[in-house]
């Protein structure tokens, strides 16, 4: 990382961060929280969930904070009426895309989508819900994937590839038809590359990938990627 620093304003607060830092990290390091469901410390950013969109003064469009690097003199707004509305709508779109029933979900009360919906005041969806009935894969000894609850954040895919280094998981198809698959779309039990390391379940923000019979609070660990990277680089 360059030793050069950049000065910018986030929500009218003057901050100074190293060149190349993303807006999301610059904000976070200065105590400003921007909501996100796909970004995770230790993984490359993907810009998929669109919840971290921010306004930049002078620019006509919105920018995803997780993939946009800071530049000198930038004036960023992370929380405006428009942004709040967009974020609420994004959450509603996520909720309507598949079958999210919190009351019987393994991640109830420990779900990032649910807590963000609560935080942003999403108490209903203006979009018709799809109520998908995708088959659950519980063929693995203890790992289960319920694609009806998946929000396609791809954290599992990135942690499998970048941290565990096996790239068992990937996406097939596009748009709302997209699905997380194992190897060449095998049942999980038949995957020859999966090391059963559980990292996918640890980083899943919702109840899509979980460990059968294990309390969700024991499974979830958002820091796992950053922790392993730190140890690996002997920092």
């Amino acid at each position, binding site marked *: 990382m360059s030793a050069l620093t950049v000065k910018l304003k986030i929500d009218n607060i003057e901050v100074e961060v190293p060149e190349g830092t993303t807006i999301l990290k610059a904000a976070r390091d200065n105590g400003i929280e921007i909501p996100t469901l796909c970004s995770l410390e230790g993984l490359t950013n993907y810009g998929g969930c669109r919840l971290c969109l921010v306004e930049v003064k002078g620019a006509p469009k919105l920018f995803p904070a997780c993939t946009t690097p800071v530049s000198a003199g930038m004036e960023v707004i992370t929380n405006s009426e428009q942004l709040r509305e967009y974020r609420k709508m994004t959450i509603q779109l996520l909720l309507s895309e598949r079958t999210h029933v919190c*009351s*019987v979900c*393994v991640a*109830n009360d420990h779900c990032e989508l649910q807590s963000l919906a609560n935080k942003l005041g999403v108490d209903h969806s203006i979009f018709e819900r799809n109520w998908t*009935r995708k*088959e*659950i*894969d*519980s*063929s693995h*000894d203890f790992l*289960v994937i*319920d694609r009806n609850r998946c929000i396609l954040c791809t954290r599992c895919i990135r942690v499998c590839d970048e941290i565990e280094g096996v790239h068992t998981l990937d996406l097939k198809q596009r748009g709302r038809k997209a699905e997380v698959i194992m190897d060449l779309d095998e049942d999980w039990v038949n995957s020859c590359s999966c090391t059963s390391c559980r990292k996918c379940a640890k980083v899943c923000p919702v109840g899509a990938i979980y460990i*059968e*019979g294990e*309390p969700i609070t024991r499974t979830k660990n958002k820091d796992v990627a950053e922790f392993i990277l730190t140890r690996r680089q002997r920092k």
Partner: protein
Amino acid sequence: MVEGKNMGKEIEIHPVTRIEGHAKVTIHLNKDDSVKEARFHVLDFRGFEKFSEGRPFYEMPGITSRSCGICPVSHLLASAKACDAIVGVKPPKAAVLLRRLMHMGQLIQSHALSFFHLSAPDLLLGMDAPPETRNIFGLIEKKPDLAIQGVKLRKFGQEIIEKVAGKRIHSYDWIIPGGAKWPLSKENADYLRSNLPEALDIALKTLKMFKSSLQGFDDEVENFGNFPTYYLGLVTPKGGLEHYDGKIRIVDAEGKIVADQLDPEAYQEYIGEAVEPWSYMKFPYYKPLGYPEGIYRVGPLARLNIASHCGTPLADEELKEFKKLGKKGVVQSTFHYHYARLIELLFCLETAKELLEDPAILSERVSSKASVNNEQGVGVAEAPRGTLIHHYKVDAQGRILWANMIIATEHNNLAFNKAVTQVAKKYVKAKQLQEGMLNRVEAVIRAFDPCLSCATHAVGQMPLQVQLIDAEGRLVDQKVR
């Protein structure tokens, strides 16, 4: 009211108030305005058996218990027992003790709700009291001490559930196939132990008060679903009162045991399910007798009729006295469901005390681990309202292929219809639609304490709708209060 020429008529009570769920009653009249028959229609459609298909079996306790805000624990237990059967393991002793204790809490809170909140207004303020005050609020005004005791007793039941499983309602993350997720803490056990005497005292006082008021209800005892049926429920190996484990016993109207220690798993061999086009609720019947002759009742009255003893000292005394009301120990009148419920309340509190005194209940070991080993499982428990059966079939990965649930209230469906017909014949005179007689029709249903949608609703706010419908099915007249 419009009189039809040469045609039978139908009176409709819709919705039926102060029950859990939504139903209506239609009273079919003969041409001379005498009552021909009455039908109890259930208007809810839920679809749990269908939409749980494809879900992992271990989600079933959570999914099915959501069908009911009153007795989710009974669903949790029946479902967990079905899941135990699918994985094929025996839960550790402490888990069984805790599940039993949790169920006692369930029975206490539900029986207290049924008696104090739903039925006491009829029993203590009078069947003919004005509907505006004949509800829990009226009771609070007229008999505040009693109402407070009712609330306290229900609260204690809820607290048992909370202390054991973390939440008062829908504590589904505690129960798992093979046991439970966490043990009972000593603080929670001590809390329950110290609050038990007060609850026991309330139950005893209430029972005493109820018994002394019984003379005033001779008419109701005689005409509230007073007819012979079979009775079905779980009993211990020695034939005692049982709510969690045990085997099925069936007793006839004369108290003769016609079948005993039947395996609940084989319920389909002796219980059939008939369907009628005018109700969403099925009509279970005792197979050897056929439909509709195979009418039987479940729930508190049935449980006391089939059990030879309770197994706790105070409840056993009361049971002896109760059995004197009927011939050969079988009490026939549906009105006595109230009485039976109060004796069960006592039994549950005594049993909770025994369970809490067992040192094994504090054991840390509460779950046995296993995965899918069997392709199907049946779980049975005695819910507050009667025998509850859950039956699941799963694929090799443990995903539900098929589910069947027989809810306690369903077993009584044939008896409901017979009971409302009996009450209607006695009290309804077609040309004088009066509050008291309509309420008696509702009250007989309330005696069964049916749980139709398995959901709570606001007390005392629902309108009562009475409709008169001619033989062609046309609405002739209606009355809303």
